[in-house]
């Protein structure tokens, strides 16, 4: 081993103490990217995988062919959902720090992804989220208190105490159960969509995973099966630039966009400004229309930034520059939508403050209610017997016996 290594090792935009260099992010001007017909063949739109669909310019004006021309009321709704996600996240982060929940994951800076995408879909569409898509639950109207009960593993926990915090689900809202194992949901969504197609139903499936998770085998399986069967599915890569401590170059993002992966499989693929509520909504609507008209699957790469640490177990100051998000060239999704609404004359600083206060109060009140159903260490607790249920539909003999043994042990 006397010779010099030639192995290429991707380098991140900045390490602690360095000034972040985000010049690697290819940015198209707002309004600059053409919008093809929804019936277009995947192979004819490679450019969409390399350019960056943007609607909101620096002047907060909505421009270009991808402008979804949403009603101001929808924009206000979107703003509200994003703000609620952010306020909820902040509060839960503090709650974890105070030792009242065991774990939390914020989506700070990425709120537009879940909220705008969810708003562009129909309630019957099935969502297969990752752990950073709390915006989907909030947009689909899940009460905050229900989410908190999951975080507390308390007596009203929808998971009956079985899952780590943030691993929500909602059958009523068509949101699938979240897995701790990365990427597994991606090909499951494709299978769900295949079933919809087999049954001749109009619903589509949508799934989300992170830039780091694209390296997982399931990403490949999802794309292969989606392409082969032209499944009505929207596969979203949330490129927030970081896995845990490794930046997107370690998932291959240095060489090519993640959207380009999809093109390679013959899946229509779009790279979009993930912090631009309007652009995210527009591309999702386009993809949904494709899926519903039988034009096949779409991969969307949402370019955004993980402003938060990976989770409450993480300390990003160990591996990246502090305040690096301030250098992020695509801004903040909430600020951008707010500025746009103000420019439209449909919003104001005052209304914004009022809304924040309202949502703060909602979150605070929800927490007060949630803890009455029990907390991690105090108050009412779920019965531990529940641990033996739902392993199988009917409890087999070994579990019956073990449950009995556990009951004895507790008495």
């Amino acid at each position, binding site marked *: 081993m006397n010779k010099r290594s030639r192995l290429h090792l991707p380098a991140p935009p900045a390490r602690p103490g360095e000034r972040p260099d985000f010049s690697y992010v290819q940015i198209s001007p707002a309004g600059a990217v053409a919008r093809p017909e929804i019936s277009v063949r995947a192979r004819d739109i490679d450019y969409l995988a390399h350019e960056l669909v943007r609607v909101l310019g620096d002047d907060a004006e909505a421009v270009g062919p991808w402008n979804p021309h949403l009603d101001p009321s929808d924009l206000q709704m979107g703003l509200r959902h994003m703000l609620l996600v952010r306020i909820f996240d902040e509060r839960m982060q503090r709650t974890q720090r105070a030792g009242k929940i065991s774990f939390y994951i914020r989506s700070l800076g990425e709120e537009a992804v879940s909220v705008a995408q969810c708003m562009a879909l129909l309630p019957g569409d099935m969502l297969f989220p990752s752990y950073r898509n709390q915006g989907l639950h909030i947009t689909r109207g899940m009460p905050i208190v229900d989410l908190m009960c999951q975080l507390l593993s308390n007596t009203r926990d*929808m998971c009956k105490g079985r899952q780590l915090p943030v691993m929500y689900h909602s059958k009523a809202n068509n949101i699938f159960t979240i897995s701790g194992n990365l990427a597994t949901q991606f090909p499951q969504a494709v*299978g*769900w969509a295949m079933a919809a197609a*087999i049954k001749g139903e109009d619903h589509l499936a949508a799934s989300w995973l992170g830039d780091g998770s694209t390296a997982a085998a399931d990403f490949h399986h999802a794309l*292969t099966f989606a392409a082969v069967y032209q499944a009505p599915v929207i596969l979203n890569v949330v490129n927030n630039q970081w896995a845990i401590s490794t930046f997107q170059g370690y998932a291959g993002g240095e060489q090519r966009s993640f959207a380009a992966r999809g093109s390679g499989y013959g899946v229509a693929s779009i790279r979009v400004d993930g912090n631009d509520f309007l652009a995210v909504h527009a591309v999702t609507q386009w993809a949904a229309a494709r899926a519903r008209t039988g034009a096949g699957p779409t991969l969307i790469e949402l370019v955004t930034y993980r402003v938060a640490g990976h989770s409450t177990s993480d300390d990003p100051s160990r591996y990246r520059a502090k305040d690096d998000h301030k250098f992020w060239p695509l801004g903040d999704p909430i600020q951008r939508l707010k500025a746009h609404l103000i420019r439209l004359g449909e919003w104001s600083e005052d209304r914004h403050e009022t809304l924040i206060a309202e949502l703060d109060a909602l979150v605070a009140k929800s927490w007060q209610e949630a803890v009455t159903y029990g907390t991690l260490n105090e108050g009412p607790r779920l019965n531990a017997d529940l641990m033996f249920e739902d392993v*199988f539909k009917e409890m087999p003999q070994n579990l019956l016996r073990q449950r009995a043994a556990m009951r004895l042990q507790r008495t």
Partner: protein
Amino acid sequence: MAHMNMIQALNSAMDVMLARDPAVVLMGEDIGYFGGVFRATEGLQRKYGEHRVLDTPIAEGGIVATAIGMGVNGLRPVAEIQFADYIYPGIDQIASELARLRFRSAGDFFAPVTIRTPCGGGIRGGQTHSQSPESIFTHICGIKVVMPSNPYDAKGLLIASIEDDDPVVFFEPKRLYNGPFDGDPNKPAVPWTSHPKGQVTEGYYTVPLGKAEIVRAGSDVTIITYGTMVFVAVAAAAALGLDAEIIDLRTLVPLDVDALCTSVKKTGRCVIAHEATRFSGFGAEILAVVQEECFWDLEAPIQRVAGWDTPYPHAFEWEYFPGQARVSEALKTVMEVT
């Protein structure tokens, strides 16, 4: 009733279920137009259409994952893994997802997927077409594990598996596809036509999951086995003139503990036989359960007969296979003690 070999019985099970339940779909590598490399799905795509009997890409992980998604969306997928040796790329989706959906979602989501896969050796398949990995799946809670030993059971168990709302991994001992096999490769092949279990009801019936079968009642010793080894055990006991009680587990999970213990309590002696490698094979769990439940009734240490702890070698298939000689040896050992 009709004569069927095990392939025909499995085919008939899927045929019956495709006809009865529009939610049933089959999927797997080469199972569609071609009818499967072992021909288990022959004719079914023609009969039920390309949309019910799907050829898939060669990605076992993708097959299981999409089957899960389909199951969650109301279908009842029966996925074939072409050889059990190739189930490993799908094991994450099986262990981390399929087996866990119901539990982690508190019953709100589940996927009634059946995974069929041919296992076992004796067909000169070498180390990558002969494995019996069932023990691994028995350790993953939340999955049922089945292995039939004859056409009648194969059909009834497969229908029961497809109808079951829990996921099932269904192992098919491929050496038994064409006939019962007593472990002696030099004897002429015996077809299923000459065996009572080759008589199969043509329509719908089930063999319940979780119930072992007493293949032969007896009082000298209990032989607990499943799959290919059932016939080897029968032959070995007969050759020794032993009045053995031979139990075919049929379902490994959930395990029919009562059947095993009732028998061992009666005979006081026990031999366990399977084709999979011995170390941490399913025989270990069976032995453990029997020891725990029947210790005071045992008149001799329980013996295990299994494949050696090596890969299945192409040239030494019959030295590897736990044939009659090895079962006899074990039987003699437990019987010697008085």
